């Protein structure tokens, strides 16, 4: 029996087991989930060991590293050993050092990247030209595409920002309402936000259907020859 067939059978069985959740929690579903988690964890450990630990900490040490590499390797091993102290005592003070190093350095890198890679570019992208560009062509649609796109972008950005302006004014009866100038703009921003969320939902739904279609197609490809498809 070829391995592909065994793999296809296992794949079919596990897929049906996962899809059995449509009738609720059942042992078949749990078995499939536990098997998936266990295999994924084992696979992750193997990958980490083969791709990270062995080549980064052992092979380098055995290969006779240079001084600079040896210093870096020594610091790496030191952090590793300190981190291993948390296996003995989760509140180990020495074990906090590598954690602090990783968290601090990771946060710094993430923040720096967010500022320079997201905030500034996105802010700069908001400064759009609402006038028709000369390269759009001679047709009217081409001429209006840029201005309309820029206008929608501008209105959507401003109205969305206004929507998250939480200032209000007190009315009679204890109610609080947005200011008169802010209220209609916030309503437009709410429409934009709703539209964006709808687009996200549609994308997630389309992705999910694609996953399902792929699985159904795989099943059909396996079952089809047996059923004459």
């Amino acid at each position, binding site marked *: 029996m070829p391995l592909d067939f065994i793999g296809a059978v296992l794949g079919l069985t596990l897929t049906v087991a996962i899809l059995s959740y*449509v*009738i*609720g929690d059942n042992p078949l579903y749990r078995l499939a989930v536990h098997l998936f988690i266990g295999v*994924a964890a084992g*696979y*992750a450990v193997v*990958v*980490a060991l*083969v*791709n*990270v630990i*062995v*080549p*980064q900490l052992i*092979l*380098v040490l055995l*290969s006779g590293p240079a001084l600079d590499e040896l210093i870096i390797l020594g610091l790496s091993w030191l952090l590793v050993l300190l981190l291993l102290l948390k296996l003995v005592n989760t509140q180990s003070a020495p074990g906090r050092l590598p954690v602090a190093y*990783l968290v601090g*350095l*990771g946060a710094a*890198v*993430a923040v720096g*990247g*967010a500022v*320079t*890679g*997201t905030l*500034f*570019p*996105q802010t*700069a*992208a908001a400064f759009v030209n609402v006038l028709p560009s000369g390269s759009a062509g001679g047709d009217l649609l081409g001429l209006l595409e840029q201005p309309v796109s820029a206008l929608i*972008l501008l209105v959507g950005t401003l109205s969305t920002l206004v929507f998250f302006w939480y200032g209000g004014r007190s009315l009679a009866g204890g109610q609080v309402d947005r200011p008169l100038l802010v209220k209609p703009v916030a309503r437009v921003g709410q429409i934009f936000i709703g539209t*964006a969320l709808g*687009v*996200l939902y*549609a*994308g*997630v*739904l*389309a*992705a999910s*259907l*694609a*996953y*399902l*279609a*792929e*699985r*159904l*197609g795989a099943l059909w490809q396996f079952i089809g020859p047996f059923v004459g498809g």
Partner: protein
Amino acid sequence: MAVIRCPSCGKPNPEFLDLCQYCDQPLKDAVAGQPPAEGTIRKSLIIRCPNCDKPNPDFLETCQFCATPLKGGAPVAAPTPEAPAPAGESAEAELPDWLQALRGEAVASEGTFVPPASEATHDWEWTGDTGAAASPADDIPDWLKSLQADTTEAAPPPATPAAPAPLTPEPAEAVPDWLAEPAAAPAEPAGDLPDWLRTPTGPLAEAAEPAEAVPDWLPGPAAAPSEPAAPAEPAGDLPDWLKAATGPLPPAEPAPAKPADELPDWLSGGATPAAGDLPDWLKSATGPLGAAGAAAALEPATAGDLPDWLKSATGPLSESAAPPAGSPPSVSSTAASASPFALGADDEAAPALPAEGLPDWLQDLAPSESPAPSGPALSASAPLPAVLPGPEDEPDFLNDLRGTASPVAEEEQPDWLKSLGLPQEAEAPAPATAPLATSGEEEPDWMRALRAESAPSVEPGPAEPEPDWMADLRTTEPSDRSGPAVSPFAAGPAPAAPGTEEPDWLAALRPAAMPESRPASAPGAGADELAQGEMPSWLAAMRPVDIQQPALEPEVDEYQETVGVLAGMRGVLRAEPSVVLPGKSATQVHALAYAEGHVKQAELLAGMLLSDREAAPPAKRRAGLAAAPWERWLVSLILLLGLLVPPFVLQGLFPLPSTLPAETLAAFQALEAAPAGKPVLVAFDYEPSQAGELEPLAEALVGHAVRRGLPIVTLSTGLTGAGVAQETLTRLTVAEGYSETVTHLNLGYLPGGPLGLLQFARFPRLAFRADFAGRDFSAQGGLWAQPVLRGINSLDDFGLVIVISAAPDDARAWLEQTQGSATPLVLAVSAGTAPLVRSYYEAGSSGRLAGLVNGLAGAMQYQRQAGVYREVATETLQLRWEMVGSGLLTVALLLVLGNLFHGVRQALVRSAGRGRGRA
């Protein structure tokens, strides 16, 4: 009694003393009792000191003030009593304080005893004829202050005119004032009498005063009209022994000088006053000293108790002439046996005294044989027999006095003394020799001791060693303390019980006897008055001020609140006085005005509050899957049918997209523009479960790169992505003749997330030391020595970066951490991630995203644009595209139908609710 002059200092001493009481020199060598010349009483002279010009008795050899020898001084006659004022002025400064205080009192009342009006008078409150008005109040003891206050109320005129002195009066400056006034009464010249001796003489002079001058408190003993002088001693001032004696004095000798109507009640009441009218001291005296034979009863009882000096005094006094009737009683008479201070009336008995038994000063008294009218003051010593000690106990000088006085004929006695019916021996007044021998300045120690002991507020005890004979007296136990005497002036011996060793007057000297018994000073005083009088004045002064009645009435439980919210309640404490209690307002309180709407709102509020109080109904148990299996099964069935039926039944319902989005076109162009010699880095950042959507993207992009023959290097930031990359890479490159490590290589898993990306972007060689399979290629020079990786030192060395990710965070991390690189980046993301990363593409030139391909549709478009795997891709992707298309349509229909169904059901529920509401 014999007096021994000290051979050293020349001062007189009782003969029983072995040592001089002044200088402690032996006295035995001296001749005892140097009497004056026989039959003559030397005129009392005063010798002025040549140094200080102060008067001194002539018997003194040295000045009593400055110790200057006085022999060179010329004697000066004592002033007459008629001129006391200058004498008082001149001698005032020379007097001791206590005498000055007494002297001041004498100005107002001489020899009178005035009890306080409101409280019982103490026996020691003897106003006397003392008084030094100039004495400051601060220097006066309390008991003397009280004397000053009392004496101002009764100031009988002096009786000096009625008591002519037989002797030539001494100059006024030689005699202190307080003694000068009474000195007129006795026959003895006042000038010879020391100051302290003149004090008791005052009453003697007052004996001739009309009855109006006698205070009312002297009624009892004066009941006998024939002898007003005998009971003239005020009860409070009389020692008990004298009280006892004076009370029962028989009215044998009527007082000729005093008419009955002028006498006080106690004098004029009768010889035998009623027992109830008599004070205690008088009652006690009347008992043993009845008219039948008081003398016989008293004499043997007291004779043995008297000291020697007193015994010696009683002798001559008993024989002395009785004082004339009408002379007021004097404290001196009562104190005759107790204190020499009260023996100022000895001047009457002095003429009978033998000259050899008397000192000089007493010899001066002797010549005054004429019975002075004021002499009865000494006759008040009629009670002496009751207290006089026996002859064996008497001092010598008293014995001497007794002996000298014994020859005195009974007819010489004053009537009032005769009326007492006492034996003549017992009638002798107490000797005044001892005190007479010294002036106020030369007061002997034993007298000081007496005075100190008699002071009510002063701790008894002499300041100097007292004479032995006085100490002996002190040590004897009192037989009766019924009549304590605090003051030496008022100290009167209580009637001694027969057989007692110590006379009462000595017992009275003891301070301890003071509080025990205090004779009633005011006759007829009730028990309340006595009880009230027990509190001393100094203690009464310390008595706190009476607590005033509270201004407010005390709150009681019956109080009923009339205002406020507590109206009608009893027992409510008033928080404020009644004066500020709120009164009822004149304005009527109207009922609360409310509208009908207010009532409804109040009811609504009450209903809400009531509903809150009610227990919340248990939440409806959520229906399980078995409860409504049809909904979930129905949706699942519809979705499954929508995915499967159209592709197989309605093929071509969803044709492949013919258009190419700009971002997808940009991605295609970026890959087309990738340099041929540089490898394309493909990041498989998705899991196998997401392969249904992203695998077509990976096949399209990687196939495009393989079609162009670009080296391909893969990696993954996820643990499972490296395996997916390996499978996809292997599947795509095998057919195209790709060789591992030459045209393609899977680096495997890149740990660290953003950190790993950053490190890989800058130092890729440090990030990977082995490929996905764990090969480090050490034999071939290492991983980075492989052909596909040669020349790769940073991210810029790659021709293109393609990131296939289903998570927006992974795509954003690639964009952020590799933004410094010039290598273009193309994102192939899931349809759900595309909206989140599209902005990076829309950023245009500010971003580094070269193209974006998303979802299954994007993969179909890219493949169609790139022309890779056309047939296979078409069949597979066509089926998957139709399934996804039909599935999206099915989902859309389910959403619409589901919303419609929900809306209709809600409408039905509402309509049903309205129907029930109407019903």
